[in-house]
């Protein structure tokens, strides 16, 4: 009998497979763990999610290019599918869950991981994939009649569509469990959007399924003024992005019509502008100004890692406030919560 190895060794080895883009090694490691009797949810949560978090941090710190991040993610997807093949052998003993990403959420991997974790917990699972149309969700709600809907949300820009998914599910009486980085570290945003439950991680998501009510009432309407302002921001999104791009020194004066490389400061800055406006929208509908403050911190890390000056972050806050002048609540959010820590 060999002494069990530390899970840290497994993470280290798996991480190396991601870094070296060694799909075969990643898949065989995962399969070995499962063959050794490690629970699928443990492999998903303690190995794949843990390693994937590092991948994101490396990009954020500018240590990895977008291509490296993508290549590593493709390996993680292959490893997750391997767990899926094991999870599907578990007999279905519980209800049916629809696992999905709302429109504008393109990170399908976290939803897939959640889906396979639930499947290995005895739930029947239907995965709708990245950026599912609301009409598709509704069709499945009627056709499948699931016991629960699980919405994975990584980016703030998908929170408004996630709210519409919650409304659609609640209208059919179906409880909704949400999770992902866009919901931050506590249930505040989830509850503000009318979700039935919030899960901080993969394991908790599976556990939370057991405690959901069979039927829930329709979602209460969001507070009128911030919801209306968010809808206006959404309608004018392209114009607002263009206005910020034109005024902010990092993006201004650029005539290229698209990114030549995905790692240029220009390409990253373009994303930063969109994310910042998404953060304001998210803060409006969730009544959580931390969305703005956290995004400012994230922007600072992403930009300074790529050679920009901290002052660019402060300047972006000023530009946002100016462009959002006609939107009093949004303007106030930026004014009060953008980049407090970075003001010189």
């Amino acid at each position, binding site marked *: 009998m060999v002494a069990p190895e530390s899970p840290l060794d497994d993470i280290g080895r798996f991480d190396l497979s991601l870094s070296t883009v060694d799909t075969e090694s990643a898949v065989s490691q995962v399969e070995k763990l499962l063959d050794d009797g490690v629970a699928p949810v443990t492999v998903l949560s303690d190995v794949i999610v843990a390693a994937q978090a590092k991948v994101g941090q490396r990009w954020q710190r500018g240590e990895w290019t977008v291509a490296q991040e993508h*290549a590593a993610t493709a390996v993680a997807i292959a490893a997750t599918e391997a767990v899926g093949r094991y999870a599907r052998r578990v007999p279905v003993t519980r209800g049916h869950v629809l696992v999905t990403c709302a429109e504008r959420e393109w990170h399908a991997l976290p939803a897939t991981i959640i889906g396979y974790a639930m499947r290995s917990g005895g739930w029947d699972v239907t995965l709708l994939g990245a*950026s599912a*149309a609301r009409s598709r969700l509704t069709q499945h*709600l*009627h056709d499948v009649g699931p016991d629960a809907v699980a919405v994975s949300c990584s980016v703030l820009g998908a929170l408004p569509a996630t709210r519409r998914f919650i409304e659609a599910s609640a209208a059919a*009486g*179906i409880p909704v469990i949400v999770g992902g980085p866009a919901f931050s570290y506590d249930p505040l945003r989830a509850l503000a959007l009318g979700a039935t439950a919030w899960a901080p991680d993969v394991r908790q998501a599976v556990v939370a399924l057991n405690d959901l009510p*069979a*039927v829930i009432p329709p979602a209460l309407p969001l507070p009128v003024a911030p919801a209306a302002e968010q809808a206006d921001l959404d309608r004018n999104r392209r114009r607002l992005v263009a206005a910020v791009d034109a005024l902010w020194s990092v993006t201004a004066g650029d005539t290229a019509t698209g990114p030549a490389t995905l790692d240029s400061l220009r390409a990253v800055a373009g994303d930063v502008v969109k994310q910042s406006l998404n953060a304001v929208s998210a803060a409006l509908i969730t009544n959580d100004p931390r969305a703005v403050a956290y995004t400012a911190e994230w922007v600072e890390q992403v930009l300074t890692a790529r050679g920009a000056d901290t002052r660019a972050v402060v300047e972006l806050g000023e530009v946002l406030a100016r462009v959002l002048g006609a939107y009093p609540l949004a303007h106030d959010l930026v004014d009060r919560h953008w980049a407090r820590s970075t003001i010189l």
Partner: protein
Amino acid sequence: MLGRARLRADLAGELTAELSGSLNLRRTRLRIFGLLQPRFAEWVMLALPDGRPGGVVLHGGTDARVTSTATLDPDQDSGLGRVLRTGVTALFRSATDAELDQTVPHPALRAAAAGLFPADVLALALVARGATIGALVVLRGPGRRFEAEDVALAEQIAGRAAMALDSARIYEERSHVASVLQAGLRPPTLPSIPDARVSARFRAAAEHMEIGGDFYDVHGSGDDWLLTLGDVCGKGVEAAVLTGRTRQSIRTAAYFDRSPAKVLEALNSVLYDADSERFVTVVCARLRPEPGGEHATVDLAVAGHPSPLIVRAGGEVEQVEITGMATGILPGVRYKEVSVRIQRGDTLLMFTDGVDEARGEDGYYGMDRLLRLLSAYAGAGPEIVCEAVEQDVVEYLDGRTHDDIALLALACGR
């Protein structure tokens, strides 16, 4: 008294809004339990005939999610059987054991109900569209009688519930037919190919239908594979039916000759002879990866379809030079074939016009935008390339309607 009056008013109000919220039979049942239990009654059971002689499916009791079955005695003219036969409500005040036996034909359910005794048992017929589709049985525990107003409300509830259940049943039957037929028309699961990687995406114009006029398919074995992607003119169900036939014709043709040009010639003849008004555009690729996956040979033929793009590892993007007429228009068409070589790090992408002809605020998405995007994703591999193109096109659309979008990408190596 005021409390009871308010409960009755609340229930009547919620009934309309909530029972119409789902077309799903099981969710509608859970909804009915959610409305009634425990506010209106402690114990609620739905009895729905299941098509067997005397057979009923019993839902609920104390737990809404529990389902069991029973067979009613055809000679019994009382209790549940009578309600189902006559469509007339029966109320048993402080029901006797015998009355409970006749109304709740299942030992476990009966035991749970008896725990509430002495209780009023109310059995209501569910009548929808002129037929009795089942019965709703409710129990109130000691000290909570069914007053005349309660019975009137229960009948109103039963009427609404019956209509909702019957609509959901009709929907479920149609939806079952549709989903079985649909399953055969959905894009297939991709096989795993030794020394090569493939990835695909499909987004239907009618996204909730999950089927449409674009299609792709991958079949073969060992070191010889056939990949096809195409577009049936038109969209929706009618187009999807023809994609099914097209895929099948291609598979059969490839069984006799795996040359892409020959496959397209056979497909053209089959579709032309079928006398259909519709034509089909196709790109057909025969992939032969070399052992180890450093290189692969790809033979290509196209029929009225944009030719594939090759994203080289270094970032150059080239469109394969080959043309051919759409299938199903003229008899006896001959197709040209071209052979290209891809190396590790290159990605070959087949796509439908739902990509370049996607219309956003600035007009068509266009080939230039696609080429620029692909150049930035050089070396990223089929999964990431498909994901990037799908995301960029859908974000460009920004919620506007679109045609079917299909992508199929391949690369050599693992």
